[in-house]
């Protein structure tokens, strides 16, 4: 188990966490999309490596989906949506970069503590993968709650989902991984189409307080 295969898998999973951190401090949408494409690329490499060391050819399909769909098609589509919606110049500052990074570090520490403790008996690769995967999931969640723009929320969701794919591929021999990654891709495609068709810019926080009240349906 130890040796080069372990080190490479470890390196790739760790890089995914690192790229998640990079997403946290991007305040321009274009830059965010580029970092997300990198995120998906690292995921694809990581999944492909797992496919190789587990001798599980079906995982190459998941890796291919990550590479083609998430690292190429989605970023390009979102790029075009950003241009169409005219929000490419926007800078988001919801929570400052400092607090967000600190929170992120806290979450990673939390997931390490929780996961490494409960998986003491599992094989080392699986448990480290799981700990990294939970970190990526939590960082994705953090990104979703600290961003207001619909596009960056989607990016947060997709990086959360990358963490799940990492966890699923790290769990050796897990069935239905390919099906689940396809199901997720459908979900994401729907979200992206939704943004495009309905021109959703922000979720429910709007600077326009009146719009907010109207949305809550409580104003008479």
């Amino acid at each position, binding site marked *: 188990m130890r040796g080069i295969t372990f080190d490479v898998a470890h390196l790739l999973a760790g890089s995914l966490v690192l790229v998640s951190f990079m997403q946290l401090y991007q305040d321009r949408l274009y830059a965010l999309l580029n970092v997300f494409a990198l995120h998906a690329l690292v995921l694809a490499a990581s999944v492909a490596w797992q496919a190789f060391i587990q001798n599980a050819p079906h995982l190459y399909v998941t890796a291919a989906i990550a590479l083609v769909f998430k690292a190429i098609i989605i970023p390009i589509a979102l790029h075009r949506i950003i241009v169409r919606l005219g929000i490419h110049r926007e800078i988001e500052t919801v929570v400052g970069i400092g607090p967000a990074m600190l929170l992120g570090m806290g979450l990673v520490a939390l997931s390490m503590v*929780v*996961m490494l*403790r*409960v*998986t*003491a*008996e*599992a094989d080392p690769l*699986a448990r480290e993968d*799981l700990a990294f*995967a*939970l970190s990526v*999931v939590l960082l994705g*969640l953090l990104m*979703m709650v600290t961003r207001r723009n*619909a596009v960056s*929320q989607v990016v947060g*969701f997709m990086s*959360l*989902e990358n963490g*799940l794919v990492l*966890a*699923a591929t790290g*769990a*050796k*021999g*897990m*069935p*239905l991984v390919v*099906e*689940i990654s396809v*199901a997720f891709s*459908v*979900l994401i495609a*729907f*979200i992206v189409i*939704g943004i495009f068709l*309905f021109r*959703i810019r922000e*979720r*429910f926080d709007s600077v326009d307080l009146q*719009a907010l009240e*109207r*949305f*809550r*349906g*409580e*104003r*008479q």
Partner: protein
Amino acid sequence: MMIDALTGVLLIPAVGTMLLAALPGYRLTARLNVLAAFLTFATASSLFAVTSESGSYLLVDDLNKVFIVLTTFVGFTTSVFSASYIDHEIEIGRLTPVFVRFYHAMYQALMFAMNLALVANNIGLMWVAIELATLTTVLMVGIYRTHEALEAAWKYFILGSVGIALALFGTILIYMAARPVIGEGLSAMVWTVLITRASQFDPALLNVAFVFLLLGYGTKVGLAPLHAWLPDAHAEGPTPISAVLSGLLLNVALYALLRFKMLLALNPAAIAPGPLMVTLGLISCLFAALMLYRRRDIKRMFAYSSIEHMGIIVFAFGMGGPLANFAGLLHMTMHSLTKSAIFFAVGHVAQAKGTQKIADLGGLTVTHPVLGWGLVLGVVAIAGLPPLGIFMSEFLVVSSTFAREPWLAVILVVGILVALGGLFLRLNTIAFGEPRGPTAPAQASYLPMFAHLAIVSVAGFYIPPALVLGFENVAKLLG
């Protein structure tokens, strides 16, 4: 024969989806929708007649039979209501025929997804089915394409996606816990295999897995800190969808949660799932009861009432034991029937009055006597007044709790009473206040509403012994 009925509940809605997507003409498709829903219900009922037999993907046992029959029954009655509701929406031009075709196809797709989630024997398949159900309802919530509807659909989409993402992480952890015991591959995700070996799983992994599953599926159940999507989705979507959401989809998510609770209960070293569920249930119940007071939108008010009742149901299942589980099952059934009946009434009321704002509704019992009194009966039932069915089930929940944890029972009773106050405060204006708005008679089909209310009323006095026996079996199964 068994497999036929089992595949039937999946096949009929699946074929229905494709057929309804292809056929033009909304009157025809509405009828076909009713027909497909009825056939599914009939097939589901036949599950009781034959002995069960499970494969590695699909499963039938006493627990999911109850859920399937309830789901297909309410699915059928809602399709009848939906037909008259949609007729009116087309007349006033709120929906175009193209959207109605889409709506009917999605309705059957939702039935398919819910049935699949209920019969899935594989925890991965169950997850995919619940995701599919979320997707179809998101599309239907946003169907009016108003600003509010899109925002509600978006919010539901994002929160629902996060919920199912967390649930998937929990599912992966369950697999990780099962793998050393059962071995790699498909069988480590098959429910019937998992349940026989659960006592040997690593308890620490199971604990973490359950927390994720509780948060994930709990989001879909609408438990309190995670409920934010629910009122918007109920208020802005078409009313038949509000009925299906409240009456069925919340149950399906709850069913997933119950399955995992059973797994944990079998492992003595794992945390007891009960107290977590009890806590979330109580919080939901109290919070939603208080929120009932400030509602100005009628559908939103009943959405909060659904959160309150899901809280009570989760509380009952969290308490566990044969009696509390029985009470929880009964309450779930009664709530599904009553809440969908209320939404049937509310749907026609909102159409007749042209608004959902409580302030613009008034004196319904004068302007629309049948609808008005139907709504009154529904609210009396949902508030838990005797002698109706929900009183029975709430009484059982509370009395079974009193014997074990009196303080929890007191908190629960406070929640129920606060909710009762909130509901009646609004009901007073809506049903008996000064008549307001249009008085033209509503074009409504009253049959589904009164059928549900009749069942709920009768259940207050008399529950067939066969049903009691069936529920008792399921309650034992739940542990």
